[in-house]
Structure formats: C-alpha cells, structure tokens
C-alpha cells in the first residue's frame, strides 16, 4: 500500500486545495478511490494525487525568517499622510 495526498480544484478561479489522503496499492486505483472518497458530489473537476513519499516539507521553523521582513511591505502611511496634508492645505 502507498499513501497518497489528494488535491482537488473546483473551477477556473480557485487553486488546487488539499482534500485529504488515502491508501492504495497503485496509482490507477488511487485515482478511482480518490474520486469515490473525495469527489462524490462535484467537489472538484480536477484531481492531483501525490505519493506522500514525494512531498517535500518546509516546516514552520524553515519559513519563520520571512515573517520578520517589514521592508517587504509598505503600509501606505507616508502617502496617506501626504495626501491628507494636501487636502487640508487646499480647503
């Protein structure tokens, strides 16, 4: 038995989303089981199956450094202040 991760995509606007997992002896049966377990009522029209052994993990510790990079954002405060000053001067 292999363990697969199941991803479903609903329509053109949505991205693929993780739906769950399943055990199957091979890819062909995994597809059938995925359809019958996760897409009985048109929950998606496209299906991705990934053998769990092939999933490469990035854990929270690996991603954490990027949570502290304020220079990658702009909160717009400087511009808002400038526009407010212009409005107030003009009135």
């Amino acid at each position: 038995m292999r363990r697969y991760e199941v991803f479903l995509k609903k329509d053109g606007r949505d991205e693929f989303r993780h739906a769950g997992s399943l055990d199957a002896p091979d890819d062909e049966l995994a597809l059938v089981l995925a359809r019958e377990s996760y897409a009985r009522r048109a929950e998606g029209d496209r299906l991705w199956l990934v053998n769990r052994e092939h999933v490469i993990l990035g854990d929270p510790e690996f991603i954490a450094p990027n949570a502290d990079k304020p220079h990658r954002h702009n909160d717009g405060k400087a511009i808002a202040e400038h526009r407010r000053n212009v409005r107030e001067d003009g009135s």
Partner: protein
Amino acid sequence: MGRTWTSMDDFEAFLDGGGIVEVDDDMPDAYRQAVFAFIEMHANSELMGGLTERDWIPRTPGLRHKMAVLAKTQDEIGHAHLLYMVGADLTVKTRPGMLEDLFAGRSKFHNVFHYQAKTWGDQVAISFLVDAAALASQQAVFKNCSYGPYRRILKRIISEEGFHMRMGEERMLRIAAGTEMQRTMFQQSLDDWWWPALQLFGPDTRPGDVLLRWHIKSERNEVLRASWVQKFVPLLMSYGFTIPDPGLTHDPAADTWTSGPIDWEPLKRTLAMGGPDSARRIADAAANWADTHWVRRVLDDAPTRAAGTAA
C-alpha cells in the same frame, strides 16, 4: 518537524489563543491520545452506521429512496475511510489496527449502533433523529476544533450529513401523511429511538473535561442535548406524534421544552458492548471484514503500475 512546546502550560496557552495543531507538531502525548480516541470512535461509528445502512438497501421502498440509501451507505463508509486516514496519521494505531480492534469489540462506537433497526420506521427515525444528533455534535466540534486535520475533514463530512438529515425529514413527512398503520409504525419507532438518540450526546460534561479544555470539542454535552430536545419536540408534535418522555415539561412563557430525568444505564451498557444488538453488530462487521479479505489480498498483490500506462 513541526512546532514544539516547552510545557503543557505553554501548549494550553497556544490552544486557548485559538492555535491549531497540525499532524507533524510535537503535541503532548495526552493530547494526541485524547484527539485520537475521539477520531477513532467517530470513524468506527461511521463504519458501523454504513454497514447498517447497507442492510437496508434491498428493503428500502421505492427506487428514489433506494438510490438515496445506496448513496448514504457510500457516504458513511467514505466518512469512515477519511477519518481512519486522519486517525492513522496520529500514529497511535495503524489503520488495520483500528479495524481489528473494532471487530474484536475492543474499541468504542456510538450507542445508537448497538440497537437493531427492525422496521422502515426505525430507519426513518434513525436518519432523522440520530443523524440530527450526530450532526449537531459534529458541528460543535467543527466550529472550534484545535486539531487541524480533523477539523478540515469534518467540513466535508458535515455537508454530507446534512443531505442525510433532510432525506430523513422528508421520509418522516411522508409517513406522517400516510395511513394509520404507517403512523402507528413510526410512533413505535419514535418510542424505541427517542432515548438512544438523546443519549448520543452523552451525560453532562464533567468539570475539567480535557476535550473541552483542549478545544477538541467546543460545547458541553448537556447544552447540545437541550437544544436538540428544544428543536425536535415541537417538530414531532407538529406532525402529530407523541414524545415518549413522561417527565417532559414545557415552559409556556419562554416556549421551551425540557426533558425529564434520563436513565443512563442503557448508554453504559452499550459502552460496555452489552447493548441489545451489540454482539450481532460486531459479529456481522467482523464477518464482513473476513468476507472481503480476498479483495484486500488482490489489491496488495496487484502488480504496481502508473496511471495511464500499460500494465
């Protein structure tokens, strides 16, 4: 791989702040055991429910309802399948290990599946009252459950349980408008299933219950039970049926219904596998597992091949 917590206090503060635990987090063992036991019982109940539903496929009246029962059987078995995967990932037991424990009578499943559905009226009472009770308790878990994989899979399960409950109410509506014989049959089913359905919620939640403290559940049993009574008493009475509870009281000012004293002995017996139909149900499920052994063997021995390629 995932997150770690330095102490139980640290972990509980994370949960109290609305934190969601993922499968690869280093969760405290007590939490792992509690969430696993809860999921395992849910999975077992879906499977036992699915097997009962299957027994009713040939006996369901009318093609439309027969097809709906077929679909419901597939849903329940599917729910069990999804839940066993989520349970297995907690690595407390393997997926086959959970099934073996169930068929050997070593693990729990909901009280209502320890009783026998004898008539079509019973099936209607189950799909209406019991499914509604199960749905209400699942919704209370889904709303705020701290274990991410379970919460996400519940979303799918709940949407399908909604179909079952509406189908049950539609059947009850038809029976209520039926002949005197049909109405008598359903009243008998109501007499038999009212209390087991009500007891599905369990006794009052104890102070310090870990399922509540760790945000696995988000509502107390007695609150869910009371709101179920509040909903179903007036509904069943509006169809002209009698609630088999002599202690039932109505507060006309607030228009609220409160059930009388509850005898918890039947629930305790089912939890000890001593319910009226426990032995037959478990033996039946075990026989089904043995009968389908050849399918699993064929799958295990199948030559591996990729999709879309020649065998």
